[in-house]
Structures are given as structure tokens and as C-alpha cells.
């Protein structure tokens, strides 16, 4: 049981790096936003494993939640204005 927490932390750290690379390399904006949200999501689980539930909740609600939603909202608005201009 004592080995479980460092292993899980290392796994989530690796997954964070993978998602971050994905966010950098993605060709479509929506996929990049999703991958960036995933980075925050894994960071929040990592905070929880490191016994910081307050930080984990903030990261989950604001970093992963509202930021992603706002990005998609702004993308939708940009698309709408692009359609109307043409």
C-alpha cells in the first residue's frame, strides 16, 4: 500500500506530459483545448494523491472546468462571426 501512491503519482505525471505534448501538436483547435483540459484534470488528481484536496478542487472546478468551457464558448462565437462575415 505504501508503494501505491508514488506509483499513481508517477503515472499521472507521465499522462500529464503526454496530454501536454498532445495539446502542443494537435492540428485542430478543439482537440488542443480538450488536451489542455486533460492536463488540468490529471494535475488535479495528482494534487489529491499528494493530499491537497483544496487545491485539487480549485484546479478541477476552475482550471479544468470553467477554462475549457470558456474556450469552447469563445470558439463557438468566433465560428458564428466568421459565418456571418462571409
Amino acid at each position, binding site marked *: 500500500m505504501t508503494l501505491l501512491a508514488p506509483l499513481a503519482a508517477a503515472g499521472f505525471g507521465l499522462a500529464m506530459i503526454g496530454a501536454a505534448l498532445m495539446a502542443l501538436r494537435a492540428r485542430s483547435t478543439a482537440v488542443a483545448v480538450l488536451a489542455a483540459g486533460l492536463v488540468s484534470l490529471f494535475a488535479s488528481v495528482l494534487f489529491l494523491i499528494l493530499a491537497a484536496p*483544496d487545491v485539487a*478542487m480549485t484546479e478541477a472546478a*476552475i482550471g479544468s*472546468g470553467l477554462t475549457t468551457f470558456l474556450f469552447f*464558448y469563445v470558439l463557438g*462565437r468566433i*465560428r*458564428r462571426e466568421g459565418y*456571418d462575415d462571409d
Partner: protein
Amino acid sequence: MTTKFTTRSFVALVLLALLGVAFWTLAAGYTPDAELNRTAAYYAENTARETGAQNIVTAIIVTYRGLDTLGEVTVLFLTAAIVALVLGQSKAPRGGSGSGFLPSGELLQTGTKMLLPIIMLFGAYVFVNGHLTPGGGFQGGAILASGILLLLLAEPKRRFGHALISRVESVSGLVYVLIGIAGIVLAGGFLDNRILPLGTFGALLSAGAIPLIYTLIGLKVGAEFSSILESLEETEDA
């Protein structure tokens, strides 16, 4: 082209190596602290006695560092105001459908009607219980705004009151500052939570003014995020 590329990648490689050496020295020389430093030890020992809050993080955010929290809320307020200002001036598309999203299905609308009260209730739970469980005003406010977002997603044509949201925001901000000033008059200083009795440790109505302050912060943050979403949604009306 190719030579330029290789020099660039060489520079990047050297920078990466330097960064790696820096991080390696940091990580190799790391030894965990045997004991807390003086400030942390003070908080760990005295928070429960002085503020009556079970969650030390909340007590630090709301009372010991209350002024910083007021600054954060102000920054959020400025963000919402600037978004409304910028989007209000942008060229309004004529006859826009009101949203970049297609009309939604019946299941999503029905589900929203059932889920919205639960989400709002959960947000309220998060900020009212801030002194007992993890979470607090900012997280609860974000959850409230998520509920508003769900409403906007389910019914893109829906228009709802600017007036209510801006009024909630103004009133909660004003009362927050008034409670801070009451702390100067009635207790030890600005935003002191001991203007109300501390109550029994671990109960819902305890820790003085902390639940009240966090409720106000939650309402204010929720209203600010909602107004950002709202101005993204419907500035073509302006």
C-alpha cells in the same frame, strides 16, 4: 533553410540541457523539511483556536489573508467588466442566430430542467461548507456558473436577466466590504471573522463570519463568471 533549422534546434537542445541540469541540481539537493517553518507552524497551531474553522486553508484564505482574497475578487470583477466592454463595442452581426451552437435536443432540455437545481444546490453546498470540507467560494461560484452554462447550452435562444445577475454581484460585493469594515469596528481588524460567535467546532454555523463571507464570495464569483458567459452569448443585442 536547413542550416538555419539545425542551428535553431542546436540552440534549443543546449537550452534544454541547461534546464535539465538546473532541475537535476534542484531535485538532487532536495531534502524534505523535518518541521514546518515559523508561519506554517503558527497557522497549524492557532487556526482552530482563533477562528474556529476546521479547514485551515479556508481560515487562511478568508481571515489571515482576507485582503488578498478581496483583491482576487476585484480582479475577477475587472475581467468581467472588460469582457462586457470589449464585446459590447464589437460589430454586431445582423440577424445572428444568437449562438454558435445548433438547437439542442429534447432530452438535453428535459435533463437540464432536472439537473439545474441539483447543480445549484451542490454549488451552494460547496461554498457554505467551505470551513469544514475542501472547497469554498471560488469553487462553488465556478459550479454555479457551470449550471448557468448548462442552461445556455440547452436553450441557446434563452435570454435571461442581466439585471438579476449584476444586482447579485453588486450587493454581495458591497456586503463583503461592509463585513470587513464591521471587523475593524467590532473585532480585531479588517475582515476579522470574530464579529459573530465562533460556535461549536465542526458545526455548520461556526467559525464566526467565515460561512457568511464565503457565501458572499461564492455568489459574487458565480455572478461574475455568468456575466462573462452571458456577454459572450448575447452581445449582438447591444
